[in-house]
Structure formats: C-alpha cells, structure tokens
C-alpha cells in the first residue's frame, strides 16, 4: 500500500476514533451520556457506514484476488 492510499484510511479511522472518544471515553462529569438523544443515533449511523466502507475498500485493496472473485 502506498502513502496516497493510506492517507484517506487514516483520516477516516481518525474521525471514528475522535467521535468514539468524545462520546464513549473521557470522564463522565455532567449527567449520564447522551445515548438517548436522537442526534447521536445519526452520528453512529454515519460512522457505521464509514466503517463498513473502510473495511471493504481496504480488503479489496489488499487482496486483488478477492477483487476478481468478489466483483
């Protein structure tokens, strides 16, 4: 894998990591977390889509044989 391909993957994972930290890590100081809030579900849905695409793309990139048989 060359650097050009790696950068978007790292950026995507960085976004996932950031949201995960802000929502799920960190010390709980002000009430419970915001799981009940509708906006959060949207953020999570977005992340799941992102994760699925990260995983799929990476596999296709790293395994050309799979590309041939899967497509």
């Amino acid at each position, binding site marked *: 894998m060359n650097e050009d391909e790696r950068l978007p993957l790292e950026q995507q994972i960085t976004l996932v990591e950031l949201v995960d930290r802000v929502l799920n*890590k960190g010390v*709980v*100081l*002000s*009430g419970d977390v*915001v799981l009940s809030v509708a906006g959060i579900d949207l953020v999570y849905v977005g992340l799941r889509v992102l*994760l699925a695409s990260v995983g799929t793309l990476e596999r296709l990139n*790293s395994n050309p044989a*799979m590309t041939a048989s899967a497509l």
Partner: protein
Amino acid sequence: MIHVYAIVEASEALPSGSGLGGAAVEGYDLDGIQAIVSRHEGTRIEPTETALLEHAEVVEAAMAETGAILPARFGRGLADERDLDDLLRSRHGELTRGLEQVRGCVELGVRILAPGPAVSASDNGAATGTEYMQTRLAELARAEEVAHEIHDLLAEGARESARPDVGSGEFLLSSAYLVPRGDVDRFRGHVRSVENSYPQLVVVCTGPWPPYSFAAIAASDHERA
C-alpha cells in the same frame, strides 16, 4: 446550562479560541483544580457531529497548554454554577488523582482491520461450504489470538493500556495506550515493527490524543491494565 470540556489544574492557562457554537471558554476553579467550561442558553446541547468536533477542539487546545488534562465525555451539561461547584467538590479527590496519573502523557490509538476471508472456498482448499466455514472460523480465532499478542506487545511500551476490544465489528483490534509525550516516536516505532511482523494485517496508529480513554479509568481507578 454549563458544558464541561475537561478538568485541568487551577494554575493552567485557558485555551485560546471559542467553544461550542462560538461560546466563550472559561475556567472555574475549586481548590487546585479547574473545570474548562462554556455557558449556554437552554437546557441542553444536541450532540451533532459539529458539536462533537468543537468539543474535541477545545480539549485539544487545552491539552496544548497543560501538563495534565482529564478530557470530559460529551454529556448533557450541568444546570448552573452551583451544580458545577458541587461536582468539583464531591469528586475532588478522584479528579486530582486522575490528573496525576495522566500527567505528561498522551494517548495513542491502534486499530487493526479484521483480515478478509481467504478469497473463496476453492482457493482456500476447502471442498465444501462447511469446510470453508470451519477454515474461516479457525482463521478468525487465530487472528484474535494474534490481536491479543499484539496488544500485549504494545502495552509493554506504554505506561498504561486500556482494555483492548478484540474482534468486534470491522476491527480485529481497537485499543488505546497511555504514553509519555517524549515516547510517542518510540511507540510509533513499536507499531511499525508490529506491522512489519504481520504483513497481512492493516495497522493504523492514531493520535496523539488527549487521554480520553484514561480519564475515566484514572478517575474511577478501575480496569487498569
């Protein structure tokens, strides 16, 4: 309402820049510790992606000014200054200890993508679908063993590690390591050597982050690796 970004020591400078929705960032001191907060109209702030990023930016900026920071989880907020004062008073001891534990350290995240299936049933030598599934399950079990090995290896180079998340979702390993600022390059070197040892895996190291994954651990003092 009052939104809390992080806890630092009272002597630390406030981060420059604004908070959620452009609100001014303030410090609220109590007996040696300081909450970094902003004040808002209304009863709560929706945790939109923009709000989460703004929260994270304030925490990052605060980290740049300080030797020890406990990032706050994005919460519902506190009603008023009295609630904030009560919070800092009632949890003063654990927050002070938490600051000590993360002093001088940053957090590095490691994610390893789960390996894809071995091409197809015919290519992995399986004669039937059942054999293929058995081979695939064995591969995944082996991969999870490798994930634990990698975690243990990386944890040796860190001051502390969070409990690793192995084999859930798209990732074979999601984990976080608390590393002294001066050791970040060395830790990244460990990650690179892991990557070289397991060329079939895609390893991504993120950070340095404020120590989110260790703020809760430090403050409540459980699940230490």
